């Protein structure tokens, strides 16, 4: 049986709107504590939090994905020539 409890006055529906503030570390400590208590007692919200973290990580990979390897190789070659 799945337990999705309404813990410390914060519902799942309310929690999902606080996830960014939680991750950014900007929740006031009282709310942060309620958030963490909810997460500890809920078996669905941790998945939501994980998905948001995965989303942030994947988004960050867009930058590394687009370094043009050809340009990078040329730059490195120039650098080596320059150093002799």
């Amino acid at each position: 049986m799945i337990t999705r409890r309404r813990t410390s006055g914060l519902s799942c529906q309310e929690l999902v709107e606080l996830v960014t503030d939680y991750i950014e570390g900007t929740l006031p400590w009282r709310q942060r504590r309620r958030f963490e208590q909810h997460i500890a007692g809920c078996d669905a919200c941790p998945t939501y939090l994980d998905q948001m973290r995965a989303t942030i990580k994947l988004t960050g990979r867009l930058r590394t994905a687009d370094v043009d390897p050809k340009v990078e190789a040329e730059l490195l070659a120039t650098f080596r020539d320059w150093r002799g």
Partner: protein
Amino acid sequence: MYQASLLRVARLYVSSPSVAEEVVQEAWVGVLNGIGRFEGRSSLKTWLFRILTHTAKTRGIREGRSVPFSSLQDEEGPTVDPERFFPPDQSVAPGTWATPPVPLPEHVLLADETLQIVEATIETLPPAQRAVITLNDVEGWSADEIRNALELTETNRRVLLHRARAKVRSALEEYAAEAT
């Protein structure tokens, strides 16, 4: 150097990739002309991007695209479909998940195609959300740099970031459900 990042940032202010390329070139000219005035109080990179955003903003204004990001308060309401929770009146546990999220499978997290989904979803976001998630999560700018570049309050920055991330998450969830 930084070419992809410069283009991506320029693109937030102007209407097309080709205009963004012109902006980047123009910014480099600005950098070369002004290099004598660079005082080393910020990093060269910060300075470069400051010139870029200034150039891109000016160009955006000339294009008639001068709507400030701060005025683009696009939408309100929940970021997760209310249908996924038990309703307030007729259930034992109102506001708890009725259709809980399922963990994203490892192969989805690692696939190149997943990155394309992320990129395509960001493209479709309203301008202010797209700008904030691009600078914050793709380019890794600080909150301070983002507020300055987009002329936003801290609350706006966080709200826009939250909405943008929630939409990308939702797109990933949908993609994972189709892929399995």
